[in-house]
């Protein structure tokens, strides 16, 4: 008999909930025709973003190219992603978990953590019963299944929710922890990547239990702090706090857009980049941030990236300022005989936007003017749609569809409009699709 790692069952009760094949399930649950059939989303990206369990069973994996999917699974239904609907359903997912506990971390669009500690008495249920109720509410309200893990901390809750999938509900109390970890490969522990796995394997550590049983001094000597913390959690200690509340700020902002067919037209590619810069700046202003360092890159047809990084003379949140610096850089990057498939921009060194500081060169006045201008631009966009007004530099990217091929297909919800809806604005309620007789 192996001794347990820890004696308490749930000193803390942390849930991890994961939507099963989330995007594909969103599609299947609103369209009965798709149920029981292999469904893949991500048509607009040219690769599988999410696949139903029927598609997984036929060997379709995440990131697989569409041509490959059609070869392996000719009957697959490949759909363009409808992020609007997925986001609406994701919000519902979190709202349902919040019915039971106010402490919810929206970790990704399709997964969240919840802290149930202390709720047994007010809810008059055991932790497992609360988890069951949450799962039942989610399954019925959203029309597809979720996998739930209950454990003393986040790292173990992640293991618990993956233990049985789809539609699993697994509780790992501290006392039983060692039995589960003995069967869990160390590379499947949340936060342990390739490098760490290789290092652990060199030391002969193969399972999560083996890692958890290593002496503290050994772990501290060989690994950095995050891995020491994972080691602590694997021993049943609660270390990683839940990050509740909405994301309020960013360290970097990135906008990358692919277009088809690939283009060698300098004006067109440059307009694509300008559009990305405009969109990135829109997000900057939304969070009242300014950037001081910009990285641009071009991706060629054969997936080679070429980029340049440059500093700005001062923080800004306006595309005009950024384009002045990136235009000459673009000319350096752009090779005339090459076909490009994507452009991207990353804004770094973000700080809070404030244009109050006086200077010698009248910058303040200029920035104030730009700031007034963009306040109006943002108001117009909020009222009439995101691309009502745009810079001349991105004109060609706005007048051409992003994709000429099937990748340009719109999600069905954007084509089935209710009276009073426009292609840009729809009711914020998910829709059942298909004919209703």
């Amino acid at each position: 008999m192996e001794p347990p790692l820890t004696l308490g069952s749930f000193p803390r009760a942390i849930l991890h909930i994961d939507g099963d094949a989330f995007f594909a399930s969103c599609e299947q649950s609103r369209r009965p025709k798709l149920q029981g059939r292999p469904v893949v989303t991500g048509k607009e990206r040219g690769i599988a973003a999410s696949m139903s369990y029927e598609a997984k069973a036929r060997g379709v994996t995440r990131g697989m190219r569409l041509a490959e999917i059609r070869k392996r699974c000719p009957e697959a239904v490949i759909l363009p992603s409808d992020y609007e609907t997925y986001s609406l359903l994701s919000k519902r997912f979190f709202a349902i978990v919040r019915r039971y506990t106010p402490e919810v971390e929206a970790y990704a669009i399709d997964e969240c953590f919840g802290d149930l500690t202390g709720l047994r008495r007010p809810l008059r249920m055991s932790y497992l019963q609360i988890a069951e109720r949450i799962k039942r509410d989610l399954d019925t309200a959203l029309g597809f299944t979720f996998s739930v893990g209950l454990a003393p901390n986040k790292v173990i809750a992640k293991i618990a929710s993956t233990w049985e999938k789809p539609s699993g509900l697994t509780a790992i109390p501290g006392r039983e922890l060692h039995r589960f970890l003995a069967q869990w490969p160390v590379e499947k522990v949340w936060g342990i990547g390739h490098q760490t796995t290789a290092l652990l394997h060199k030391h002969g550590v193969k399972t999560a239990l083996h890692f958890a049983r290593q002496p503290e001094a050994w772990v501290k000597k060989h690994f950095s702090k995050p891995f020491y913390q994972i080691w602590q959690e694997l021993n049943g200690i609660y270390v990683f706090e839940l990050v509740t509340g909405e994301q309020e700020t960013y360290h970097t902002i990135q906008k990358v857009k692919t277009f088809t067919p690939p283009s060698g037209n300098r004006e067109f590619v440059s307009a694509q980049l300008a559009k990305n810069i405009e969109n990135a700046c829109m997000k900057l202003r939304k969070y009242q941030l300014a950037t001081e360092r910009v990285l641009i890159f071009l991706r060629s047809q054969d997936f080679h990236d070429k980029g340049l990084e440059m500093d700005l003379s001062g923080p800004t949140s306006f595309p005009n300022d950024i384009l002045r610096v990136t235009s000459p850089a673009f000319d350096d990057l752009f090779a005339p005989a090459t076909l490009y498939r994507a452009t991207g921009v990353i804004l770094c060194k973000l700080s809070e936007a404030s244009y109050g500081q006086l200077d010698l060169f009248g910058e303040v006045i200029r920035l104030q003017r730009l700031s007034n201008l963009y306040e109006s631009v943002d108001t117009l966009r909020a009222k009439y749609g995101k691309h009502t007004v745009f810079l001349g530099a991105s004109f060609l990217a706005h007048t051409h569809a992003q994709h000429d091929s099937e990748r340009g297909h719109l999600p069905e919800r954007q084509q089935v409009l209710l009276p009073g809806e426009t292609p840009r604005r729809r009711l914020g309620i998910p829709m059942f699709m298909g004919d209703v007789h």
Partner: protein
Amino acid sequence: MDSHYLKQIQAFYRSHKRMPSYSELMAVVGFRSKNAAYKLVERFMQRDWLEKDVKGKLLPGRLFQDLPVLGTVSAGFPSPADEELTDTMSLDDYLIGNKEATYILKVNGNSMIDAGILSGDMLLVERGADPRDGDIVIAQVDREWTMKYFRRRGVSVFLEAANKDYQPIHPQEELKIAAVVRAVIRKY
């Protein structure tokens, strides 16, 4: 959000002449857990909006005794403030019960024409709700949505159209009811 909760608590206080208990508070602000209600109280106590007596019962705090500020008015009657509107609800609240389970769909076909539901109408439906005899439901038949009356006769159930040209559907196996219709919307 907090000010919204405060208004609901104030409305309770006005109509009941006392503060709610914790379980009443849950109902008033729409929480399903006492812990959430408890946290709300803690937050409001920090702002002096609420107080507790020695036994832990809630007492109205500072904001309950203040005179309501009805905006600055130069002459005549005060303008109608939110104060008067706490007992009204939005169209969303009126039409939608279980917000997280409500979906919209567009009708196509005339099987419910005698119930006044026309092709092109929009429906608000609630997923996973238990259908009662006489409810209009969205069922899943042969991988299609179908809208019919839900009929229960003893232990057996069947679906019936509101159109004499359609035959009732008696399910051979399990009947899959996806949702119950809660409202019909027709925008002209």
